[in-house]
């Protein structure tokens, strides 16, 4: 059951918000699950993958899922998640970093409720942050991008300059360099998760600078992908496949599948074994996957990508293994050293080969 809160406010604000929430006090024992997402759930994108994962988990444990979509971060979200818990939700998934403080308060106030929180860093006994190791997939996508780039310039339209997205660009650049050491990656930060017009302008700006592969880094709308098809350049993105928007020029997707993780956590909640921990999940956890590869990628490169994929999955290869040099030419990670998960999750510098300076 889904309900757009804004739509509801618009049409029937007089009826009061409480009745707007689809959570019902039900006498039955089914686990009440609530998912709060920052953007509207479309057929593609970040919120979409969360809904898919949460629905699968609800089905697996016989729970009832309420999706509260398009909830602005801040006091609004705090009130809505409190309301959900007060109405009997026992398992709450918060789909955005900005829900962290409100989510922590919720966890403290309702110790019997288990909370999963996307891309945060705070942990409490009943509050676990979770994030995807996108970088494992973007490294592979970078390899494919470099193989198809004729100009040697790749562009990325990125949301916010936060470590999660900085690492996904860095790994993308490292993967591209594995195929073509001379490749350059330009980044435009649009400072929004959700502004189709700016994303489109940013992609056009990059293409005008000679970039002939686009990496839509955590943009929740297909505008970069659709533009790439129009402009005849290859494009890839995160979270869910947008192949239908660029049937000819879709490079591939670094996807996330949250169903196994959410299901395991919901089960743990029911069995009383839920424990707060920081979950940083990747290819080996079957959360991150790569798919929908473009047929134009040379088979020799495809073979190397498959090898790397297997090595990453087996834990034998990590893109963030030294020597890693930053944009100023300084060696940040010496040869033979691999960055820890913690270091990767806090990465605030670009590797050499990314030409755009990081906004400070």
């Amino acid at each position, binding site marked *: 059951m889904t309900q*757009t809160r*804004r*739509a*509801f*406010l*618009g*049409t029937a*604000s007089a009826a009061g918000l409480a009745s707007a929430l689809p959570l019902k006090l039900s006498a039955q024992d089914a686990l009440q699950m609530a998912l709060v997402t920052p*953007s*509207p*759930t*479309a*057929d*593609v*994108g970040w919120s979409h993958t969360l809904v898919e994962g949460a629905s699968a988990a609800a089905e697996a444990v016989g729970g009832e899922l309420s999706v509260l979509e*398009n909830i602005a971060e801040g006091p609004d979200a705090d009130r809505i998640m409190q309301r959900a818990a007060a109405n009997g939700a026992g398992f709450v998934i918060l789909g955005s970093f900005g829900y962290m403080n409100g989510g922590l308060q919720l966890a403290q106030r309702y110790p019997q409720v288990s909370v999963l929180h996307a891309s945060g860093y705070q942990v409490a006994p009943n509050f676990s942050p979770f994030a995807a190791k996108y970088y494992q997939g973007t490294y592979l996508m970078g390899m494919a991008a470099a193989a198809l780039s004729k100009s040697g310039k790749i*562009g990325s339209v990125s949301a916010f300059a936060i470590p999660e997205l900085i690492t996904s660009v860095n790994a993308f650049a490292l993967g591209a360099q594995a195929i073509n050491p001379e490749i350059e990656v*330009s*980044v*435009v*930060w*649009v*400072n*929004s998760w*959700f*502004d*189709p*017009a*700016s994303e*489109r*302008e*940013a992609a*056009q*700006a*990059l293409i*005008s*600078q000679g*970039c002939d592969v686009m990496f839509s880094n955590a943009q*929740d*709308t*297909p*505008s970069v992908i*659709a533009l790439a098809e129009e402009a005849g350049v290859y494009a890839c993105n995160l979270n869910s496949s947008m192949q239908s*928007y660029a049937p000819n020029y879709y490079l591939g997707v670094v996807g996330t599948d949250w169903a196994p993780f959410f299901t395991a956590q919901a089960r743990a909640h029911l069995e009383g074994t839920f424990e707060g921990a920081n979950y940083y999940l990747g290819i080996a956890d079957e959360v991150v996957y790569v798919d929908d590869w473009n047929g134009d990628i040379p088979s020799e490169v495809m073979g190397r990508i498959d090898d790397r994929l297997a090595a990453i999955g087996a834990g034998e290869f990590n893109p963030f293994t030294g020597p890693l040099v930053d944009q100023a030419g300084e060696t940040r990670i010496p040869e033979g050293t691999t960055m820890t998960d913690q270091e990767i999750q806090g990465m605030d510098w670009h590797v050499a080969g990314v*030409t*755009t*300076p990081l*906004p*400070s």
Partner: protein
Amino acid sequence: MSPLEFILAGTLAAATPLLLAALGELVVERSGVLNLGVEGMMALGAAVAFIVSYHTGGHALAFVAGALAGMGAALIFAVPVLMFRANQVAAGLALGILAGGLSALFGRPYESLTVRAIPKIEIPLLSDLPILGGMLTQDGVVWASLAMAALMAWAFRSTRLGWRIRAVGENPAAAHAIGTPVLAIRAACIAFGGALAGLGGAYAATVYTPLWADGMIAGRGWIAVALVVFGTWQTGRVAMGAILFGALSIGELVVQATGIAIPSQALAALPYLATIVVLALISSNRARMRLNSVASLGEPFGR
């Protein structure tokens, strides 16, 4: 394509949604009414136009539908404001929230779908010019919006209708005394402003970024409201302001794409800073402030 060429080519299209909405708001404010619901009216126009375009595959009908949707929303605002002398700020904000909510509701099944944009018009010879060629290759709506700006500037300066609108905004009591139908003119201006806001939204959702996503207007309605002040209620200056904002929004991204070391946030804030500076400048001189602003803006009229 050089960065300059790219900025020139992209500016007019980026400015068009702002220009249409700002021209609409200009007419409303010139008649003495402040409608702060532009963001919502644009969103509603965008959603309705997208839906029509998605089902018919065409654009003419979509633009008509978007304009009607914006006009309909504006008339909801006109009733309390004109008939019951309600506070215009409160009513405008309420309209914005209502229309934004309606756009989300109507657009729900169309989230992230796409439509085909209208092609740009190649002008023989001119479109092949170096540097300026890209700027002169635009779709018809861009040219129509600029023509609308010119038409409005002329109307305010030299037509009876324009003078009557200005009179109603400057001194409604005097206008009423000489027999001008104040409320009827204000209602027509509000409807016209809503239609233009709807058109701006329609352009954003079916031509500029031919896809629907809830929240895609992303503050452009508020920029349009700011532009009217920025342009000190002069049509030409409002149009220049819209084009300047368009150029800045493109320029910010180009600067990043070319790797120049300027913080992107600072660039993104530039248009807003410019608005504040202009506001401070025109407010600092009382005489100039009185000369330019609409005297009875925001004041209800009636017996």
